[in-house]
């Protein structure tokens, strides 16, 4: 099955929510992605791993149109990201939530304002309703009592939970997580992973997660993938990928992150 997806068999793309074909991306002379093809079905959770600099974050950013690609195709929900006009690109971004490694909360807004600004200013949601929704979301991520606190007063884990709520406020059908826990202290990681698990269970959302949290990946992900030097090395159902990898490169990588 997995190999069918990688070779780009058209049959597999019929229900794919994200469809990536032969994507190449380079920064000047440095090539970051070297022919990536993959599909993500609706409701699926895909985990991307790989050594730093392997292109996993770049791939994620390309899916959201934050980076442009040099060659290939990326379609999200049937819309081509690369050829999209500003309106279509906005529609793709509206249906996609992005969670960054360094949270990127807006420092001049309180936790609640961080969550309500996009619904109010982009969707035109009335302030009263946006605030009500915002408080509900803060409750979902366990941050209800910090609604009126500014980001600089929050811990890393708390900031990331607010950032997740901010992304959820736009009711996305797809969530992209770019190493959501790697900037966090070990004890804060679990609180964030817990929230991501909960989001997955409650919304049954399509997710692409760049992470090295093996326990989390095994319990949430349907599939896992190793990227190295801008190429897909191995792709398998999550459990098989982490417990019984086929490739020597994957085994080496998993040993390295377990010993870490």
């Amino acid at each position: 099955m997995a190999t069918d997806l990688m070779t780009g068999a058209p049959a597999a793309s019929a229900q794919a929510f994200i469809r990536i074909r032969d994507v190449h991306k380079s920064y000047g002379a440095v090539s970051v992605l070297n022919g990536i093809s993959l599909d993500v079905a609706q409701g699926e959770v895909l985990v991307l791993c790989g050594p730093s600099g392997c292109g996993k974050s770049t791939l994620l950013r390309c899916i959201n149109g934050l980076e442009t690609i040099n060659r290939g195709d990326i379609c999200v929900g049937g819309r081509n990201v690369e050829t999209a006009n500003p309106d279509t690109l906005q529609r793709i971004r509206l249906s996609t939530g992005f969670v960054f490694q360094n949270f990127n909360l807006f420092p001049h807004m309180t936790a609640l304002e961080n969550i309500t600004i996009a619904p109010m200013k982009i969707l035109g949601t009335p302030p009263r309703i946006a605030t009500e929704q915002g408080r509900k979301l803060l409750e979902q991520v366990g941050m209800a009592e910090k609604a009126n606190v500014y980001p600089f007063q929050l811990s890393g884990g708390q900031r990331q939970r607010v950032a997740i709520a901010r992304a959820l406020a736009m009711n996305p059908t797809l969530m992209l997580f770019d190493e959501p826990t790697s900037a966090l202290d070990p004890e804060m990681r679990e609180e964030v992973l817990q929230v991501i698990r909960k989001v997955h269970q409650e919304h049954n959302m399509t997710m692409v997660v760049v992470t090295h949290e093996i326990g989390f990946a095994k319990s949430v992900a349907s599939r896992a993938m190793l990227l190295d030097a801008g190429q897909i090395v191995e792709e398998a159902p999550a459990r098989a990928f982490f417990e019984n990898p086929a490739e020597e490169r994957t085994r080496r990588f998993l040993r390295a992150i377990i010993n870490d």
Partner: protein
Amino acid sequence: MNYTFQFGVLTEYGPYLAGGLWHAWWTSFPSIIITTILGVVLAAMSMSRRWLLRGASVVFVDLFRTLPVVVLLIWIHYVMPILTGVSFSPTVSSIIALSLNGAALACEAFRGGLEAIPATQTQAAQSLGFSRWKVMRYITLPQAFFATLPSLTNVHITVIKNVTVTVLIAVPEVMFRAQELTVQFFRPLEFYTGAAVLYVALIWGYALLMRMLERLQKWQPI
């Protein structure tokens, strides 16, 4: 030094001299407002994707920050009416000259503030669906405003100080009145010292006001 100070003249004519502050303020205050608004617009233009807007901003800034204020003022008040047939009162000419000069300085201050906002803020906003204009309006400009406040205060102070050159086209502010009184009473030291004290008080008070504005910032950058 065999000059005998007679500050007594100030008790009689001090109020008239200080009355010039009213004109100084009503020349500088509109200039400060226009300077700030135009500065923000020029800074936003300088970061546009359209080369025409970027180019217009560069030309404006380079022209008005290199033109000496006195030359600009005289040109607007005396030369432009000959060329265009449009003439302004001394106060309006002064406001135009001070605003054009101030806007060029304010643009550079705002641009510095905008460029200091990390690109990740723009990316976070774009990922939520913000357009380029809305990113500027709601995310980068509000953050840049507070980052720019200290240097914006300097720009405003420069604008207020420049009011003194309007003496050349007879705006009846403090310097003009000091000159007027000096000619009449031959007491230059008293009147010009009085003018100095009045300007220092005005600008010092303004700087204090701006420092209070800086304290309104409840958040910190992270």
